[in-house]
């Protein structure tokens, strides 16, 4: 089983439900902090919003892309960051993390951020989503999206809704050239 994410850029209306819900549900302990995520100057959550302005403005929602060849895992001295055998997701074993921040630097997408109180290198999936996923359900960002723009599921299963969507549409993966083999599909048409 290899779990993957899909985000349909043709449908997303930038409503911010996923961005805000991710923060509020996964990291409610810091939701009222003056600066919940000082490193990124952003919400204490796992999705960042990037608007690219080359010609026609483009929206990107950046979170962990769950690379099959993850630089963050490669650089981790303790194997705290690892690819989970059951799900294929890039996860963190908190008990092994020594807080060296190498993974934060190594991630070419800037998907990791420093939790202000635990000082763990946070990333998607957050603690609540991990459990939701382990319970066999779709994570929060997928379940809240009003625009049918998100999906999550097993890309090794050709009948999963995500596999069907990938096969039926034109999609790309973020910065494919880097060779990180992300398991995150951006539908373009």
């Amino acid at each position: 089983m290899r779990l993957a994410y899909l985000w349909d850029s043709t449908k997303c209306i930038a409503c911010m439900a996923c961005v805000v819900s991710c923060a509020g549900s996964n990291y409610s302990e810091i939701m009222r902090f003056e600066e919940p995520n000082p490193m990124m100057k952003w919400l204490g959550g796992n999705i960042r919003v990037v608007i690219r302005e080359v010609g026609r403005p483009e929206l990107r929602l950046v979170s962990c892309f769950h690379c099959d060849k993850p630089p963050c895992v490669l650089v981790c001295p303790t194997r705290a960051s690892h690819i989970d055998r059951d799900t294929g997701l890039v996860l963190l074993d908190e008990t092994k993390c020594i807080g060296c921040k190498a993974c934060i630097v190594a991630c070419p997408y800037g998907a990791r951020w420093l939790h202000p109180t635990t000082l763990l290198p946070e990333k998607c999936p957050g603690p609540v989503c991990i459990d939701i996923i382990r319970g066999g359900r779709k994570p929060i960002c997928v379940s809240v999206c009003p625009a049918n723009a998100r999906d999550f599921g097993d890309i090794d299963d050709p009948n999963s809704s995500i596999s069907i969507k990938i096969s039926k549409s034109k999609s790309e993966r973020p910065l494919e050239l880097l060779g990180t083999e992300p398991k995150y599909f951006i539908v373009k048409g």
Partner: protein
Amino acid sequence: MKLKRRDFIKAAGLTALTISLPASKVIVDSIRREEAKGASLAPEVRWVKTYCGMCGALCGIEVLVNYGRPAGVRPILGHPQPGLCGRSSSLKWLWDSPLRLKKPMKRVGERGEARFVEVDWDTALNEIASKLRSIVEKYGYKAIAITHHDVWSYYMPLFSYLLGTPNVISHVSMCHANGTVARGHVLGAGGPPTIDPDYENASYLLLIGRTLSTASMGVVNRATSNEKLRIVVVDPRMPEVGFGNVEWVPIIPGTDAAFVLSLIHVIIEEGLYDAEFLKRYTNAPFLIKPDESPLTEADIIEGGDTRKYLVWDLKVNGLVDHKAAADPDLLYTGKVKLKDDREIDVKTAFILLKERASKYKPEEAEKITGVDARTIRRIAREFALYRGVADDTWYTAKNGNDYDNVRAILILNTLIGNIDKPGGLCYAESARFPSIITVRTIEGKRYAETVYDARMPEELFGDVGAPRVDRVKYRLTPSTFDAILDAIIKEDPYPIKALFVIGTSPIMRDMNTSKVIEAYKKLDLLVIINILPQEDVDYADYVLPDTIFLERDEIRSTKWTLHASVQVENRVIIPPEGYDVRDALWVMFEIVRRAFPERAVALGWSSEYANYKKYEEEFLHKLNEGIISKLVATWKLDKEAFTRELNEKGYYILKRKEYYVRPYKTALGTPSGKIEIYSLTALANKLDPLPDYSPPPAYTLPKAPNEFYLVNGKGPLTSVHASLMEPMKYVGDRSIWMNPRDAERLGIRDGDLIELEGIDTRAKAVARVKVTNRVREGVLFVYSQMWGRRSKLLPQNHFAREGINPHWFSKDYVVPIVGGGASNSSVRVRKL
């Protein structure tokens, strides 16, 4: 077992930073994890179905309640209008927000100083009541006014009788008034949700000045589930949907009517219209006399019927009542002999439309709209060939010429006959939801009867029958708050001395902020019922803290769906400890019970309900039971099955959309019962019966190189409440957008500060520029009803103080007769 660091820190609750969090917060996540694993939830932890009140769209949502706190939100799947958006996602922050108004307050400083003392409910209500009594003694009940938004709007007619005043005047002039009047005139429809594109079956959707993402995520859900839908947005700025796979046509502000009339021109010229539809279901074949009125039977026969509109029937080659005509001629022009033997020239309404539209050949329209002629032609052809649908608009308080834009848009849909058909512009089924109050005559005597069967006799109506201040000035308006300001400032047409502002913020909402403030300062009594310190609060005599939607029990009809449906709002949670808040409904009754006891009693209130628990348990129960029993009777439902399903699912669909009804089988609410491409109501009110383009009358057009249109709009975060919540610090855009070419010309870079000066209002403000292609050259854009907060009750460093409120720069232009406002303006820009 190793203790995980995250759990360790949480369990110990030891960092200084987490101390402020109540203990229950810490267990939210663990409980949610249990639920995720499929374990059954503890009774204290449950998902409750309700609907969202963060904006007026009332999307169906489920809230995870964890030991009395909201812990998560998700859409109700299967709901005819499911949530969610960034606003509803932030309700977790709202419920126990430190910003929430927590206790009644009474002003001790000058208006605007925001100096208050906390008082108990009794003191506040008694004092308000005694002030109301003396105002009424001197000026009558009609000197009291209420303004509101969607919150509590269902109860407003009740409040009108309760206070004996006609002056209950909502936000609508600053929202959809211009469009709503147009919908009435052309299609016999009402507010924006009464007709809507059939998004899930449409093939080509034209959004003209309309953003799908503003509110009602059910609409988004339906449009995005339609894989074949092509979307074209016409707007000076690229709305959020523009990020997706849609075509964005940047247009010069205030020129939509010229654009749409040009589409109409192309469709007529190229014969792409649905002639059969126009002949049968519209007044296009009506013959129009030189005096602009339609030719009726009364014109040609003594004692003829003025409601028999004559057309030229090609079958019999003669004048025939439209209803009886076999083949009405769309293109007839000729002479007609009247009953007094005079001969006059007549031509069809369709020809008049054709002539009107021909003023806007694409090459001409290009000069006005800035959209090139080829694009106009292509969109016109695509629209006709794909059997497109143009959204009937929502927010239309923009440039002062919006009424004509919307009429043109509705006529565009009519031309291709795509009305009340799958994929077309459809009439929503009505839930026939009972009104809170209706006037009935029983044995020759009039009563105002409530949905819960209380009866107020006529002699207690007070001034309810007096002319409403806005309708005196703007005959057709659904609601024009600016007229209240005039009534306060100039006592025109009569003085208003007391104002209740319920669940809204005129300072953020209405044009010309300084006029709103001037009026506030002149009032004898200003009472604000709200949940957060909106700037208006600073001017109030009394501030009364309201409940939020999660803390109420209500039943409503579902908006923004073509089906007839009702939904419930469950009292998901109670207010946080120390938040001494009360429903506005209770507040209004309790004020009136103290001021004019006989009025409250007549409307079913008893002094027992002063006890809030009794109000919740008995009064609300009686009210909701009243609504339910009326719905059960109207729809012939099994009460038990109905309430069970309503509570289990959160909604109940009363009737699914039936296509091909209006205007096919059922006459419309227009004077002719037909779709009126040539509006007889407009004519009767001395308005142009056909839409036309005129330059925006609401502001001086920008001319000099440093002058710009300042347009404002809404997005998926727009809400005066949500914008104060912590997440908006990061996801809310407080900048002012400028096109890169303008920026280069003025030497302005992304992130620079500029000074804006209103060309008409002379107001000045500083804002940070975002240089972006999302806005057309010559135009600046800001989100409205979000930023530029000035309440002294907000922390000094609150992020919502940044940015601007576009209404600082707008004049108080109101569209004559129609009554809609206009919030765009023009500004001069100086780099700082």
